[in-house]
């Protein structure tokens, strides 16, 4: 056991820290700075910020050198995310799908031609991607995907509906999971298409979410003609490829996330120190003090889990048992933390927006925390996976997807 970083890693940390320190927008993080709030403002802002990251070579940190990336080590990626979080720098937003989902999937399964065509504009931010995965009837049961792409000579005809598609109305391209064979069991008839979002018949409609913002979309596809050359890899291999895509959703950003939650926790503690209840600060109130300390403990443990997980990956190339429960653990930790933050305000929790404590940060945080336990494999799906794949418990009849016969 040795938690020290190598001199090279420390040097990299210093380099990132210096870069972030000198490149954040003027006044960023100060109360006077007007952070982008609406989706449109965030798109404009993140295009500028992420372009800056890209030009400095930090966007493609984790991409191999042959595709224009830096080929950074796993530890360097972790350090990068930690430093970004420490500086409270903006999180990857507009180019997230391209950099972390579409790019790596094309790298893994695309033809040489496709790699040459699509990867450079992702890195340079000249093209923005969205990901067409979930559907109204294919959420946790993703393989139930019903959007169909029927091959007709040299092109596919695409019909169907996607949902929870981030950035669809601003994206240039879509990594679309669709059904290309109706006659085989459902996992076996899926393919990936690389779809130009400007094609006729594609209709993205923003989906207003509980926070009042519209980050997601529903996307309708009606008789969209997609050239056959836009098939990624092989026909009917989509389910296998989808697992590649999903495996890139998490990873080296874990400890960075922990630091961002730590920032939020510090804000919550400040909120608790200045809110008076029964004549004492909430932080000293017997009904709250222990809960606040417990929130601290739970968040610290997220860091320890991250350290164990990194070590498993560095030693064995894959996460260990600690990693299998990490998502379930931290997502519910965030839910509890946000509930507590709301409770700190007492009746002021019933206000929202500019009238609420901290301009509605806690109301928004509380609502957003539900995204953590639902998205990227709901807690219930996580528990199925943990019980079957880690604990080796028998697959039951109730939830096991029935193959079409």
């Amino acid at each position, binding site marked *: *056991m*040795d*938690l*020290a*970083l190598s001199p090279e*890693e420390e040097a990299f940390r210093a380099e990132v820290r210096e870069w972030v320190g000198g490149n954040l927008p003027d006044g960023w993080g100060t109360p006077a700075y007007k952070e982008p709030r609406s989706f449109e403002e965030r798109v404009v802002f993140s295009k500028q910020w992420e372009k800056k990251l890209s030009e400095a070579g930090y966007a493609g940190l984790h991409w191999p050198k042959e595709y224009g990336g830096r080929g950074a080590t796993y*530890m360097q990626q972790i350090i990068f995310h930690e430093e970004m979080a420490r500086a409270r720098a903006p999180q990857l937003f507009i180019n997230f799908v391209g950099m972390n989902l579409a790019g790596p999937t094309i790298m893994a399964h695309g033809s040489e031609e496709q790699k040459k065509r699509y990867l450079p504009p992702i890195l340079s931010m000249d093209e923005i991607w969205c990901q067409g995965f979930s559907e109204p009837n294919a959420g946790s049961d993703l393989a139930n995907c019903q959007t169909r792409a029927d091959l007709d000579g040299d092109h596919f005809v695409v019909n169907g509906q996607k949902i929870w598609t981030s950035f669809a109305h601003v994206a240039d391209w879509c990594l679309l999971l669709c059904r290309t064979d109706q006659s085989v069991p459902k996992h076996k008839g899926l393919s990936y298409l690389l779809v130009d979002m400007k094609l006729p018949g594609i209709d993205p409609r923003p989906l207003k979410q509980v926070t009042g913002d519209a980050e997601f979309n529903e996307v309708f596809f009606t008789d969209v003609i997609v050239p056959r050359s836009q098939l990624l890899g092989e026909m009917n291999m989509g389910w296998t490829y989808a697992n590649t895509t999903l495996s890139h959703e998490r990873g080296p950003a874990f400890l960075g996330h922990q630091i961002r939650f730590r920032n939020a926790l510090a804000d919550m*503690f400040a909120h*608790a*120190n200045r809110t008076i209840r029964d004549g004492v600060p909430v*932080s*000293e109130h017997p009904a709250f*003090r*222990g809960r*606040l*300390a*417990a929130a*601290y*403990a*739970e968040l*610290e*443990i997220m860091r*320890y*889990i991250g*350290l*164990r997980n*990194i*070590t*498993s990956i*560095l*030693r064995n190339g894959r996460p260990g*048992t*600690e990693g*299998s*429960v990490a998502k*379930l*653990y931290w997502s519910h930790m965030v839910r509890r933390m946000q509930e507590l933050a709301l409770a700190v305000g007492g009746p002021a929790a019933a206000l929202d927006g500019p009238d609420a404590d901290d301009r509605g940060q806690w109301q928004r945080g509380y609502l957003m925390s539900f995204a953590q336990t639902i998205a990227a494999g709901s807690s*219930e799906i*996580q*528990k*199925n996976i*943990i*019980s*079957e794949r*880690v*604990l*080796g*418990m*028998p*697959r*039951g*009849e*109730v*939830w096991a997807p029935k193959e079409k016969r």
Partner: protein
Amino acid sequence: MDFDFSPEQYTLRDEARRFLEQQCPTSHVREFIDDPAGWSRGLWKQMADLGWMALPFPEDAGGLGQGFLDLVLLLGELGRVVAPVPFLSSIAQAGQVVLRHGSPEQQARFLPGIASGEQIATVAIAEKSGSYDEAGIDTRAEQSGNAWRLTGEKRYVLDAPAADLFVVAARTPEGARWFVVEEGAVVTPKKSFDLTRTMGTVALEDVEAVPLESGGLEPGLRICVAAACAEMVGTAAKILDLTVGYSKEREQFGRPIGSFQAIKHKCAEMLADLEPSRSAAYYACWAVATDADDADLAVSVAKSFGSEALARVAAEGVQVHGGIAFTWEHDMHLYQKRIKSMEHLFGDAPYHHERIAQLVGL
């Protein structure tokens, strides 16, 4: 960056597991459960022969020159089989306090007996107040000439009926510190909720004591807590293994109960309580072993979370077993009672939450 144990440490764990599965089945543990002062001297002797007691002590104190971190996985294995021996008390707690607080002469005087297993030591911290820090300690240490004498009553002392040496936290006019009592402590065995371990009250009536050289109670106190966490994780892991195993065998409605989501999700939640507790216990052990800046915090994080989360593991383990786990014959209550005892010893969750609150400036 490497936050895991070495291959050698894992090898020792595997050897320990094989040895303890053979030598310490629950049939052996049950030989001692009716006697409030009973523990397995036979198993203790075998462990001493394997060198486990000597492991973490310096060679010139009769040890093998390894460190506290070499004990962590071993403690887990002993927790796994609820071994009826005073290893936690003597080796991982009292012996470590002497090692960290004692002068070289004091180490040479007390450690060889502990490291050979011939002498049993234990820590005596809590009193009537139930607190594990300086503020809760009333036991007085008074100096006359070169000699120190202690007066007070220590409670909830693990393995007190087995102990030859008591490492006692006591109050001096200059603050609390550790003392070693060799003679004169009067032990009253107490019936322990945890059937696998003995416990007692230790009365100190003007008894002679040796003050360990390095004053204050830290790092000794936090080492005691970290070691307890490492052991608890092993017991809880065993509960989960038993529970998952049982759920695959036990059939109702014509199928193994482990195929029902109600049971599978409970087991997944148990793992999601166990693994973070394990991460926290390991981190706390690393932090105390290396005197990391956040060692105090790490220990309270591990014990507060572990106390609550591992108690949930024990409770759900019983629940999944159903009626069978409510019987004396079934072993589950041995593990359940161990966890529930340890939840409240060495600081429960509210105690450690308050420590965290103070440490983080709440």
